[in-house]
Structures are given as structure tokens and as C-alpha cells.
């Protein structure tokens, strides 16, 4: 207890110092401010270890703020888990920015300070201040009205806490836990929290802030969502809150993966892949709520562990991928994928780091993203089965959203790596793009190595880091099991062995390479890449337009007939009439499929197929 109280005090001082560094950054040399930020973040990450290892909690009151509304802070296993990740990522981001000599010190330090404050918050006012600092440092574009919408996020979160607070009390979390409000108010608060975090995920950060969003803001947002729904409203949880979270998270996961496979900019594409992870985290939190409402402790633990594994993935892989993508764009002088290319030759280390990050962000074994996907499916499989259609259809649709998002994310990752890293340079600036400095390369390599290691040992990593937090939320030590290499959720099924799958893959590939070397004959210089012709004289890199420019990596959507435009006076021509020519053949085919689907669903409801 004493250790936790001391840790909380030191973390609070760390947060205040970060805020001071952020506000004084204008007068400090840029590199000094960023190195200071990196050091303070790393120190904060170390401070989070004792509460995780000792599984203890502590509280602190700061005598500041309006009368009766002093700032309350608390540190338990769940905030410690998320803070450990976020401050580790924050330290890497600040150190990278320091070596890359950018003037991002104020934003990074203020954002990290706000993140610490919002995760340690034990009352509504502290949460409001922390989330406002966190969001205000990363998101708003003050010149655009839409950018200011981010300020709604802290207000919605504060409103949710106020709704959860019993009448006559200050909006403190201990009062909320002691006297839970009714289901109606708690439900409105849950919907408000979901709307706030969904909005936070969907907002696009300012250019250059994608790494902070991936490494700090999005995991912190999910932690706040879990705090407000699963923790503070634990006694009044309703299953339909989980369905709302599944719907919002599923929509975000599919939409962001789809955008990642179509965005023109490399930084936006990678940023969308990270936001897809946040959507999946929302789905995991939703599954945990559904299981909690049905008193299925094992299912709740698995869902929470899947969520936390996705958070680890977002911090490690998301940070390294966004930093590498931004470094490539800065080095080649453009963010447009269609003007990048061949960077593996000029920036091999950065390319390797980007590749490691992309593998972990997509659904390819043995990456960490695949382990998280596998665990998320386990959570879906162990979700309550009630045989009632309204309860079960959301689970089937959640599986559809996860699958679609995984497939689109893989296509997006292939597109980013294939267009920007591989192939021939498309511009002279791209052909001469300089590699990062050794120190920046070291930071990227360390983050990439951590992502790879976490992918190879997902079970031990999540058991070591997230077990205390999951135990605190679900009240049980159930969840994933298995040894050093196996990730399993039940004794009846062996599970997923990432290290063994990686070894099998490496062994099979190695055997093929050996056979090919044995059969290899002397090669000859050739230029099959230009169809047997020499490149034009004035285009020494060949015709850049001959290569794929990153379009066409998604399937065309079906041509469904749109709704009649009744509201547009310009198009109004009386009551709409459908002539036979208005429905294309493909739409007719889709209608037949839909009718078939309805028929089969009817069969399933009536039990005729059983």
C-alpha cells in the first residue's frame, strides 16, 4: 500500500513535470525538451511496474480545483497496465522525435501529461481536464470548425460521469461505486461514453501526430471506456451496452481498414490501420460487457485479455509503423503512396521496421495482430449462447466485421509495403531518400523487436502484464492458459502456438531456399520488368506510371439501386416509379441472395434445420 502511494505520488510529479516541460518548450531547445520528455516517460513507465507486480491500489487527493471538487487520483492494476504501455510508447516517440530534430516537444509532453492525468483520474473533473489536455494536444485543427469537434469528447465523458454520480454527491468514482445509480441513467452514461470514444477514434489527428494517437491517445481512450462501462457501472451492466460497443467497434474496424486500403497518403493509411485496432478493442470491451451481464467470468476474462493484447499491439506495432511511415514521407519528400517506391534500397532499416509493424497490425501469423484476432474469436466463441435471435445475430455480425476488417487490413498492409517500400523509385527524391540516423534507427528497431517478441510469445506477455488488471475487473483469475509458447483458453483444445508456427514456417521456407540454391544455375542480366525493352532515355528509372500506384486493392462494391430522391426538389418528378430498367442485373442477384438469407434465417429460427 505504501509502495503504491509513493508510486502514485511520483507519477503525479512526473505528470506535472511533463506539463511544465510542455508549456516551457518554446524557450527550451527542441531536442532538450524532447529528451526530457523521453526520460520522464521512461521513468513513469518504470513507476508503473510495482502496482502491476504487487497488484495493489492507492489514492491521492490534490487540493486544487473548485471548492468540494479537489482533484482525486487513484492507481490500480488497470491504469498501471495502460500507463506502462503508453509511457513506454511515449518515451520511444519523444526520443525518436528528438533524434529526428522535430519541434514536437510541446504536443508530445502535454499529450502524455494529459494521458497520465486521465488514466489516474478518480473523479469527473480530473477526467475532464486530463482528456481535454490529451485530445487538445493531438487532434484539433484550430483553423477548421470540424477540428474543434474533438472538444466534445471530454465534455461527453464528464457528462457520463455526472450521470453515474448519485444525487447529492460530488462526481467522484468512489461515490459512484458505493451507491450505483439506476439502469436508465447508467445506460445513457454508457452510450455517451461509447459515443465519446468512438468519436475520438474516428477523428483524424493532425499530420505528424499519428504516432501519438497510436501510442497514447487511442489506448487511453479504450482504458477510459472500460473504466466507465465495465468498472464504474459494473453492478448495472446490461448486455445491450455490449451490443452497442460491438456495433460501433465493428463499424470503425471495417471502415478504417477499408480506408487504409484506399488512402492516398502513407501516413493516413497507417493511421487508419491503427484506428482499426482501436475499433477491435471496442469490440473486445463489448464482448466483455456481454459476458459480464451473463455472469460468464471466463468469457469476460478472455474478452478483456483480447482487448489488452490489441492495446499492446497498438502501442508497439502502431507506434513503430506510424513513425516509420512518417520518416519515409519526410525523407522522400512526399506522403503520396503513388510517388513513393523502392525505399527498401535506400532506407532498409526503416523499411524493415515498417514491415514488422505492418505484419503485427494485420492478421498474418505469427504476428501479434493474428494472436489478438485469434483471442478475439475465442471471446466470440465463448460468448453466451441463448438461442434467441436478437441476442445471437449481433455475434454473427461481429464475426463478419472482424473478418472483413482483417481481410481489408491485410490488403492495406500489402499495399503500403508493396507500393512504398518495394518496386522501383518513382521520383528522383525517392531514389535518393536518405536513411535515418543511427539513433533513430535503433529506436525503431527496438520497438519492432518488441512487437515481434510479443507476437511470438503472446501468452506469457499478456499473462505477465494484463492478468492483474483483468483480475481486478472480472474478479477472477480465469482467462488464457498454456505454457511459454501456447495461447489457449480451454483445456479441451490445444490452442495457438505462435513460436511453433513461426518455426514451422521458417523451417519449410528454409528447406525450399536450400533446394532452390542446390538447383540454381548461373543467372544472366535481364530486364523482363520492362517487357524486354529498355527504359526511355529521359526516364532513367523506367516509366513510373507503369507500376501499380496503389489503386485497385479493394473489390468494387455491388451496384445496388439507391433510394428514390424524394427530398430534393430539383429531382422531384412526382411519385417515384420503378421501371424494369432501373434495377441492374447484379442488384437483382443480390436481392435473390437476400431473400435466400431471410429464408435460411427463418428456418434457423423455427428450428427446422436442427
Amino acid at each position, binding site marked *: 500500500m505504501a509502495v503504491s502511494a509513493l508510486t502514485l505520488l511520483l507519477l503525479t510529479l512526473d505528470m506535472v513535470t511533463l506539463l511544465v516541460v510542455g508549456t516551457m518548450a518554446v524557450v527550451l531547445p527542441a531536442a532538450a525538451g524532447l529528451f526530457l520528455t523521453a526520460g520522464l516517460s521512461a521513468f513513469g513507465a518504470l513507476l508503473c511496474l510495482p502496482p502491476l507486480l504487487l497488484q495493489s491500489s492507492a489514492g491521492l487527493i490534490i487540493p486544487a480545483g473548485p471548492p468540494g471538487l479537489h482533484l482525486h487520483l487513484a492507481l490500480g492494476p488497470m491504469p498501471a497496465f495502460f500507463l506502462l504501455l503508453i509511457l513506454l510508447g511515449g518515451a520511444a516517440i519523444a526520443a525518436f522525435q528528438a533524434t529526428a530534430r522535430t519541434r514536437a516537444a510541446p504536443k508530445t509532453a502535454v499529450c502524455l501529461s494529459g494521458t497520465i492525468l486521465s488514466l489516474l483520474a478518480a473523479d469527473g473533473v480530473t477526467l475532464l481536464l486530463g482528456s481535454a489536455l490529451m485530445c487538445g494536444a493531438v487532434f484539433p485543427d484550430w483553423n477548421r470548425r470540424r477540428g474543434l469537434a474533438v472538444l466534445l469528447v471530454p465534455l461527453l465523458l464528464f457528462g457520463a460521469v455526472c450521470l453515474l454520480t448519485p444525487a447529492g454527491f460530488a462526481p467522484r468514482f468512489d461515490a459512484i461505486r458505493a451507491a450505483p445509480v439506476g439502469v436508465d441513467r447508467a445506460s445513457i452514461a454508457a452510450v455517451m461514453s461509447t459515443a465519446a470514444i468512438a468519436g475520438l477514434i474516428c477523428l483524424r489527428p493532425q499530420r505528424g501526430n499519428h504516432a501519438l494517437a497510436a501510442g497514447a491517445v487511442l489506448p487511453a481512450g479504450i482504458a477510459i471506456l472500460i473504466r466507465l462501462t465495465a468498472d464504474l457501472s459494473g453492478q448495472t451492466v446490461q448486455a445491450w451496452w455490449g451490443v452497442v460497443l460491438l456495433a460501433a467497434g465493428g463499424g470503425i474496424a471495417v471502415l478504417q481498414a477499408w480506408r487504409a486500403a484506399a488512402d492516398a497518403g502513407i501516413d493516413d493509411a497507417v493511421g487508419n490501420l491503427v484506428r482499426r485496432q482501436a475499433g477491435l478493442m471496442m469490440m473486445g470491451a463489448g464482448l466483455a460487457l456481454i459476458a459480464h451481464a451473463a455472469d460468464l467470468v471466463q468469457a469476460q476474462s478472455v474478452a478483456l485479455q483480447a482487448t489488452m493484447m490489441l492495446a499492446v499491439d497498438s502501442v508497439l506495432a502502431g507506434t513503430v509503423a506510424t513513425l516509420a511511415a512518417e520518416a519515409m514521407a519526410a525523407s522522400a519528400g512526399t506522403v503520396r503512396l503513388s510517388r513513393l517506391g523502392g525505399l527498401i534500397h535506400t532506407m532498409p532499416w526503416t523499411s524493415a521496421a515498417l514491415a514488422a509493424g505492418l505484419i503485427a497490425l494485420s492478421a498474418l*501469423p505469427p504476428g501479434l495482430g493474428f494472436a489478438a484476432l485469434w483471442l478475439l474469436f475465442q471471446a466470440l466463441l465463448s460468448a453466451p449462447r441463448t438461442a434467441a435471435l436478437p441476442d445471437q445475430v449481433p455475434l454473427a455480425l461481429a464475426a463478419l466485421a472482424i473478418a472483413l476488417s482483417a481481410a481489408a487490413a491485410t490488403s492495406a498492409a500489402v499495399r503500403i509495403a508493396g507500393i512504398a517500400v518495394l518496386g522501383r523509385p518513382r521520383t528522383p527524391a525517392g531514389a535518393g531518400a536518405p536513411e535515418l540516423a543511427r539513433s533513430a534507427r535503433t529506436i525503431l528497431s527496438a520497438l519492432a523487436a518488441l512487437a515481434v517478441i510479443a507476437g511470438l510469445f503472446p501468452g506469457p506477455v499478456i499473462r505477465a502484464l494484463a492478468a492483474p488488471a483483468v483480475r481486478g475487473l472480472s474478479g477472477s483469475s480465469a482467462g488464457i492458459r498454456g505454457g511459454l509458447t501456447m495461447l489457449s483458453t480451454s483445456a479441451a483444445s490445444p490452442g495457438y502456438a505462435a513460436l511453433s508456427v513461426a518455426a514451422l514456417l521458417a523451417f519449410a521456407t528454409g528447406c525450399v531456399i536450400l533446394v532452390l540454391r542446390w538447383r540454381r544455375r548461373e543467372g544472366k542480366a535481364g530486364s523482363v520488368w520492362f517487357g524486354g525493352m529498355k527504359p526511355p532515355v529521359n526516364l532513367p528509372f523506367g516509366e513510373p506510371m507503369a507500376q501499380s500506384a496503389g489503386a485497385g486493392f*479493394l473489390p468494387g462494391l455491388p451496384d445496388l439501386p439507391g433510394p428514390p430522391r424524394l427530398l430534393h426538389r430539383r429531382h422531384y418528378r412526382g411519385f417515384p416509379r420503378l421501371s424494369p430498367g432501373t434495377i441492374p442485373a447484379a442488384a437483382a442477384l443480390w436481392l435473390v441472395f437476400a431473400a435466400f438469407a431471410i429464408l435460411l434465417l427463418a428456418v434457423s429460427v423455427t428450428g427446422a434445420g436442427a
Partner: protein
Amino acid sequence: MSLLLSLVAQILHVALMLAAAPLAAGGADWLEARFSGRSGASILLPWRDLVRLSRKTVAETDAGSPVLRFAPAAALGATIAAAALVPSFSRSMALSPLADILVIVSLLTVARVAMVLAALDAGAATPGLAAQQSSALAVPAEAALIIAVFAIALMAGGLNLDLAMGQMRDGGLGPAAASAVVLAALLALAVADDGFALSGLEQAETGNGVAVARLTGWLRRLVWIDLIGALFLPFGFATAGAGPLEWSIGLACWGLKLAVFIPCLCAARLTAGRVAARRATELAAFAIMLAVIAAAMVLTSARMA
């Protein structure tokens, strides 16, 4: 002794899969030609092609990175890894504990991704277009495959292939209607995958690379056939520890399954004609719908796995 036998069965299984993949491709081409009224080439032609291609001189360029050189090997390695996990004549082999259905289908995705990256690394127009087409088709196809796997896991009570096979042998993956719908989805995906997953990607390769790319495609088709056979016809498998006599019965059953499935695939291809790229996407979307319906049917059925 049992461990040794399961290891021997595993090695034999991988060797047989590698040997049978070109033969199955040759057999399918021969059957297709016979169905069309032509005499058809020898079923050993794919093997001869592999030998011929491996003797050709490789054209090398400065533009390509190590990805272009090693990606075909990685693709074949991933496909071999997937093939090692799907039983052909024997179950409970050495790698059976790793045989998670989601891992198997994801290894096939790894193989496709490796080939797509090699095609993009070539920096030429036609392989790039093939890479785009393959990626675009993969979005609905891989999504459908994952949902179908989810539906099977719901019916079997887990993602392990041996578990699903045991469940099927004991009383079928229920409910029966959902099982039939998943089978229809997997068959539609097999047809779409066979035509387009790796189509055109070998244009980036020369010599050995082309041989490896072709072998990858043929082995991929065999993995599909064995996976569907293992899930929906889990009969006639030997136990790895039982020894060579029972293995020979398992081998005969595997040959029988291939002899039934390959003509059916040829007949379907001939009847429906060559599937156009856009139709393949629609076929995959249709498979998504079937797989979701199957999952909903299992979830709403009263029977717990």
C-alpha cells in the same frame, strides 16, 4: 514408439502432398480435356514442367530487392506449412496440436501475400495489375473463409482441426443445415480461390521462381481439397501411431477422395465456364453471406457444441 510413428507419418504426409500436388493438377487438366472431347496431355506434364523450368537460366535485375528473390520460397514454405497441418491419410500426426483451422487458412494468406509482394517488387505493369486483382479478390474471399472457420468452430466447440474432425465423426457438425451451408460456402470459395488467388503473379518470376510459383498454386489447391475433405468427410483416416498397414488403408481412402473431388471440380469448372474476375468477387461475396447465415444458424440453434 508412438511419437516416432507420428513423426514418420508427418514426414510421409508432407512428401506425399508435394508429390501429389502436380499429379492432381495434371489429372485435373487431363480430365478437363477429356470432358471437352480432346485427348489431353499426360498427367505427368506438370512434373515435367517443373523439371524443365528448374533447368532454365534465371534473368536477374538490379531493380529487384531480396523480396523478389525469396518471396516465392516463402510462399511455398507457407503453403507447405499449411499442408503439413491438414491431414491426408492419417490423423494425430506430430504437428496435429498446431492444426488450428484459423492458422491453416492464415498460412494460405501468408503464401498469397508473399507472391503479391514479389509481383509488386518487380516494378512492372502486368504483375502489378495481377497483384491488385489478387488483393481485391482476397478481401471478400478471406473474409468469407474466416467467417466459415468461425461457423465451423462454433459447431465443433473450438478451432482445432482434430477436434472438429472428431466432432464430425461422432455425430456430425450440427445443425445439419448449417453444416451444409458452410460446405456450400467453402466450395464456392475453393472455386474462386482456384481461379484467381495466385493468377498472374508468376509473371514476375523466371526459371526456378516460376516452378516454385506453380508448385505453390497446385499445392494450395490440394490443401483446399484436403481441408474440405477432413472437415466434411472425416472418414478413412488412419491413426498415426497405428503403423504402416493402417496407413495403407488411409492412403487408399485419400486417393479415393481425390478421385471423386477432382472430377467434381473439373465438372463444375466446365459447366460454369471460366469464372471472370468480377464474378469471382461476387462468388466470394455470396460465400460471405452463406457463412454468416451458417454462423447465425448455429448461434440460434439450441444445441451447444
